[in-house]
């Protein structure tokens, strides 16, 4: 695409895949091409060593298995530390697309803390695995998740043994991770046979995955028409390859990428029907299972450019964006609390299906928690004014009546006429409110506005 990006395009694109635009971003990218912006977003090192400083960071968080299991409250504190750490990483990263994709996969392979396991340390290990593969190879990612310690606990793989296979992981592997709900493509029998092939994997005392041949079902299985026999610890890879060989798998994963990053393609039969972007992303994905290549197709598509109100951003994207706009650190406990109220806690998805989409986020509870977040961020920005690390140095809040500056600060190209009228109406009726009160009101209302959530 060579047609220059509009301010709306930049706002919308960065809003959906980069935790929101700053005013600098809007000025920088408006008028340049979509390819140039995508080149910039995709400039994530291929070598994961470049972005995997995580063991040190985990150490700094003093998250250890022993500390987690020793004390439940300590576990909560560690969880908040871990959540804050990732939120702050989302805010400050040089590669926001990498963090956005890591979040995408956390949602796709939704794993949560469970008592007594998995614990925070395992969740952080999984988080690093997700980041390593976030723009890597889907086949490798799928294999890694299948024998990921947190996942082995979360979906009961660790307790599935020969003779008594536990179907939990086998079912979600097919339904949520690869093929979607598609009874025409796999049967209950495939789930049971996959569960048999997955037996034998456990989590050892060092909280690492381990294969125990005695627990493994050595019999013949047939999964998706593929006969699997005598492969022992490799059988999970055979099941993975059988699932990847099904054309519906690339379509389903592509559909989900479009739904979460671009727009809602609707509840469709991904094989029969036709969202053209889904089909193109799927075709690219299937070539070599390169996530980077598939996301590249998605981001460069004309359909990915701005159309009004394509997707309701998740709470964590909004929280990180708000913190970024005002240069407020995103690791405070208040941010995690507001996210809890909005229904999104990192490392604690509501269930293995991941987080809701679109209208399911829109409710008074969410509205009030978002409002609470805005109130806190405003106070925090004022408290830390002059000391904070905004991209172009410390800045104060815009004057209350400079609505264009407020829109820009929050990465919105321009307010809708309705929001403009609401804000002007407030300013006209604010009476004796002083300038600080007015700024606080405008900021709270901007964060509460429809166009800020629905981009």
């Amino acid at each position: 695409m060579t047609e220059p990006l509009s301010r709306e395009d930049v706002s919308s694109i960065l809003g959906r895949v980069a935790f929101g635009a700053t005013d600098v971003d809007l000025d920088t990218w408006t008028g340049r091409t979509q390819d140039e912006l995508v080149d910039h977003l995709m400039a994530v090192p291929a070598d994961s060593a470049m972005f995997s400083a995580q063991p040190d960071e985990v150490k700094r968080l003093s998250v250890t298995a022993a500390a987690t299991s020793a004390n439940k409250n300590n576990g909560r504190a560690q969880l908040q530390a871990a959540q804050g750490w990732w939120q702050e990483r989302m805010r400050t990263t040089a590669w926001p697309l990498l963090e956005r994709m890591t979040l995408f996969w956390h949602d796709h392979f939704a794993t949560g803390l469970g008592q007594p396991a998995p614990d925070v340390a395992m969740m952080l290990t999984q988080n690093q695995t997700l980041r390593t593969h976030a723009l890597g190879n889907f086949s490798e990612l799928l294999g890694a998740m299948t024998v990921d310690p947190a996942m082995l606990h979360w979906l009961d793989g660790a307790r599935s043994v020969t003779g008594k296979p536990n179907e939990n992981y086998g079912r979600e592997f097919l339904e949520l991770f690869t093929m979607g709900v598609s009874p025409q493509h796999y049967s209950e029998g495939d789930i049971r046979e996959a569960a048999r092939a997955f037996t034998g994997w456990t989590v050892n005392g060092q909280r690492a995955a381990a294969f125990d041949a005695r627990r493994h079902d050595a019999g013949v299985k047939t999964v998706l028409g593929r006969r699997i026999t005598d492969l022992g610890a490799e059988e999970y890879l055979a099941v993975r390859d059988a699932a990847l060989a099904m054309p519906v798998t690339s379509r389903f994963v592509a559909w989900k990428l479009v739904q979460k990053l671009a727009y809602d393609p609707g509840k469709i039969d991904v094989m029969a029907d036709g969202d053209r972007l889904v089909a193109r992303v799927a075709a690219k994905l299937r070539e070599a299972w390169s996530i980077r290549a598939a996301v590249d197709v998605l981001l460069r598509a004309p359909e990915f450019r701005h159309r009004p109100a394509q997707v309701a951003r998740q709470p964590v994207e909004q929280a990180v964006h708000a913190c970024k706009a005002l240069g407020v650190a995103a690791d405070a406990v208040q941010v995690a609390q507001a996210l809890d109220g909005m229904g999104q806690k990192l490392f604690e998805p509501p269930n293995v299906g991941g987080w809701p989409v679109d209208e399911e986020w829109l409710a008074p509870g969410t509205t009030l928690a978002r409002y609470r977040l805005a109130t806190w961020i405003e106070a925090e920005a004022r408290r830390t004014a002059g000391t904070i690390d905004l991209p172009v140095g410390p800045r104060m809040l815009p004057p209350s009546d400079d609505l264009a500056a407020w829109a820009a600060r929050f990465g919105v190209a321009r307010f809708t006429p309705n929001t403009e009228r609401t804000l002007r109406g407030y300013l006209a009726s604010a009476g004796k409110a002083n300038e600080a009160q007015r700024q606080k009101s405008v900021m709270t209302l901007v964060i509460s506005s429809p166009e800020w959530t629905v981009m």
Partner: protein
Amino acid sequence: MAVSRRRFLGGTAGAAGLYLISPVLARAGRAVGIGVDPALANRRRLVVIFLGGGNDGLNTVVPVADVAGAARASVYRKLRPSLGYAPEQTLRLDRAADAGHGLGLSPSLPYLHGLYRDGRVALVQGVDYPNHSYSHFSSTEIWHTGEPERSVSGWVGRHLDRAGASEGEVRAVGIGNGLPVILRGDSRQGLGIVNIPSTKFADGADNDVNAKARHDALAGFGGHPEAEALRALHGRTSGATVGLVRNLAETKVPAATGSALADKLVTARLLLEEDIGTEVVYLEHSGFDTHANQRAQQERLLAELDAGLGMFWTGKLGTKQVMEPMSPHLTDRTMVMTLSEFGRRIGENGTGAGSGTDHGAASPMFLIGPPAAASPLVGGVHGDHPDMGTVALPADNLVMTTDLRRVYESVLTNWLHNPDPLYSRYAPLPGLFR
């Protein structure tokens, strides 16, 4: 002059009217028995409890005796050597009319059993839908929409569409984050709140003049609907939020109980007691996906359900008086029903205490009504138990005997007096209501 508890949004009422309604009665009026809108005060209430994860029906309502032509108890004992209950551990469903069913309740449900003996509990066996989905997500959606064959809005949401709502009315509330499918209609929807204490503004109440101006402005997003559907819904939700916060500003809320479910039932009670027209409350009690460690996990969850139900009507959680007992007026007008996305398979999937069960199909539903003398709900066992095969050739799964649409149609027709045209082909269950 009575002062209405429900406050209105002035210029934004038009948009907020999606949720709101006709002026009703003041709490002051209600207290002295005058001025209460009888249509609203006498409205039947429904609390829907979703047992998320797929509650194991067979360890909730246990086959304890073989009955003519069906060796259910024998099959149960054979397939559940670790998880099964012995007959004497269960609470027998032993009212005269039910003795022939050979069933007992989980020992974790003593309060429910008491209500059963009082004739307040209708148990519908084997409820499901054709071409059952074993997916949590697909099956949950079907239980929420009440329609397995095509994509439609939520069955309570459709009730809202047909019933309408006047300004200020909050006819249906979901307790939890976001807005569940069940409450989403085509033109109207319920409201989702986490609890009442959090249904407040972080910057203070309306008595701060600056805060009030902000809240008024927030409500204003609902007054100028955006063109795009999602943004318009966002705006309407803002307007409704401000109305709800103002309506609940004076509601006295007991301290947290320590039970997440009991806290939700406290919220449900308070909403039903407010004069804001709340008719349906939806809440979830999750964790029933017992692929492992089922016995301990399900017993804990069912015991919490049982204690929560006790609190809902008596105000007492265990020995602690959390709130007043439910008033006779409300008791006579309130029904609770339980749903779950599916039951679980007949056989257990492991050995010993760690074993569990995998996703299954049909399961029982409970409907709990007013005291029997005043209740249109007929207590006791309804419908047929699903076939479990024979000891020599046991079934793997429970196939439905009652289509969930018939249960919903019964509730809509006989309890809420608002039948759903979508269910015109489905007769209400005979004998479930009198």
